[in-house]
């Protein structure tokens, strides 16, 4: 055999090893969290608020954080959908196909996507101070909306660009107005839209740095938009910082809850995006 064939074999093995290590890491991370957290994961964790001595190891759960996270993410989802969908429709169907303006918008979205969440957090906080607001549910909602919007717009834009160019022309030639055309296109895009939403929810629900100053933390479920709200990542972080072992174990259990949420979101996003490619004309 020639040297180049040995080289080929050796590098192939190295490459397979690298890929296997990456697969192994994923399993290792999920495995570690489940292994440490399962013993402390009880029904109380997901159905009860933190009790009196919760942070000393007494009874209670993290329902406050679960509900808080859900409130924040649903609020920011509504805001970002109302802004993202019109924007994506605008740059794809109202601007000419090779518009420079559209590429500038895409470019700034890419950069906004790369801005670290701690910077959004600091900016959101500065904004709230300027408006005279304190750490609250609404502050968290607005900041998380800023964080997830670029991701949502970009992934919705990607699927919209995959859509056949014939569909809008066919609709327009049948006498539809642009608004009617958008309604049909949106129906066609539905699986892609759901994927974009799920990706955005995954990013928003797992991020701690944005809500650290803007949403605050509380042991209760917020009753109004002006009250602070707890979130799952922060709840994990604070419990882990406790010196009491029971509380630390509960942090691992809360980490399982968050991981399971992320796994479900990720797999459903994949399911809907495969559906989109099947729907494609």
């Amino acid at each position: 055999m020639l040297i180049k064939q040995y080289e080929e074999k050796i590098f192939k093995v190295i490459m397979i090893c690298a890929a296997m290590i990456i697969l192994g890491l994923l399993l290792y991370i999920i495995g570690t969290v489940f292994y440490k957290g399962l013993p402390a994961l009880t029904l109380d964790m997901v159905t009860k608020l933190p009790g009196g001595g919760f942070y000393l190891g007494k009874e209670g759960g993290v329902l406050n954080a679960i509900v808080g996270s859900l409130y924040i993410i649903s609020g920011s989802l509504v805001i970002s959908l109302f802004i993202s969908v019109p924007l994506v429709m605008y740059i794809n169907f109202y601007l000419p196909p090779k518009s420079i303006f559209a590429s500038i918008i895409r470019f700034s979205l890419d950069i906004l996507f790369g801005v670290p969440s701690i910077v959004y957090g600091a900016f959101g906080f500065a904004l709230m101070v300027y408006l005279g607001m304190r750490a609250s549910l609404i502050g968290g909602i607005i900041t998380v909306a800023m964080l997830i919007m670029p991701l949502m717009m970009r992934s919705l834009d990607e699927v919209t660009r995959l859509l056949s160019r014939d569909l809008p022309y066919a609709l327009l030639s049948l006498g539809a107005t642009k608004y009617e055309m958008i309604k049909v296109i949106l129906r066609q895009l539905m699986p892609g839209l759901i994927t974009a939403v799920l990706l955005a929810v995954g990013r928003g629900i797992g991020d701690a740095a944005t809500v650290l100053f803007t949403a605050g933390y509380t042991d209760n479920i917020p009753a109004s938009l002006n009250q602070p709200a707890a979130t799952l990542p922060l709840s994990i972080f604070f419990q882990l910082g406790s010196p009491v072992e029971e509380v630390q174990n509960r942090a691992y259990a809360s980490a399982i809850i968050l991981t399971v949420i992320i796994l479900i979101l990720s797999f459903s996003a994949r399911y809907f995006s495969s559906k989109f490619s099947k729907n494609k004309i």
Partner: protein
Amino acid sequence: MLGIAILTILFLLVIGLSLFFKALPIMREKNLWTLLTSANWKPFKGDFGFLPFILSTLYVSLIAIIIALPFSILTSIYLNTYASKTVRRFFEPVVDLLSGIPPVIYGVWGTLTIVPLIANKIAPRFIEFSSGYTVLAGGVVLAVMITPLLISIMVEVFRSIPVEMTDASLSLGATKWQTVKRVILRKSFPGIIAATVLALSRAFGETMAVLMVCGNITQIPHSVFDACYPLPALIANNYGEMLSMPSYESALMLSAFLLFIIVVLFNGLSRFTLIQIEKRYQFS
């Protein structure tokens, strides 16, 4: 809709300007260059030297890139040129999941596995004692976090190389690896650099996971087994208490502004390169 579109572009400017104006008081008070190069951090005496934090951020991110880059390049070459369609299909969700795991979970994993590993196994071979909460721990956790980003961009970059080019190399009798070495890697060099810069900027801004494993001690780290204190962790840890001191708040805003500017620059450059590559692919 036009309004939203213009707002989107302006939004970057708004973030940048508001952070800048928040940071202005401290820059008026002190020379910016002294702020960046002084290692003296005593906020309650009015000394704000950012050097320890800047160096910590750099060290942690560099270690992360050095670890992540070989794995990512090898894996994406494998996925692009060697792997069958089934393997590729299988790996897509793996990369997606890895990039979808929240920073806090990475932090939990790091404190449970990497930190004790360094404290008990690796550090004792080189120095007497290390708590495990070190530059190295931060670098390793970050490396795992940026790997999916690197892989997904590099797979795209490799895919953008025209098939004719690799076919020509293969038909001349080159092995697949020779083709990778002489054609694919050389041709996609700008793309790899762009991906690296993008991953680096992601590493600069990562907060929670690094904060949980790197020790948070204000010092200039002298070895990888020293604790460190990156910029994002500084902001996250001190935000609550600084409100009583305007100059402290302004100093923290300055660090957010620095982070923002660097990340925007890095992102802008690498995205621009990647868009050029994509364009070349579309018209060829």
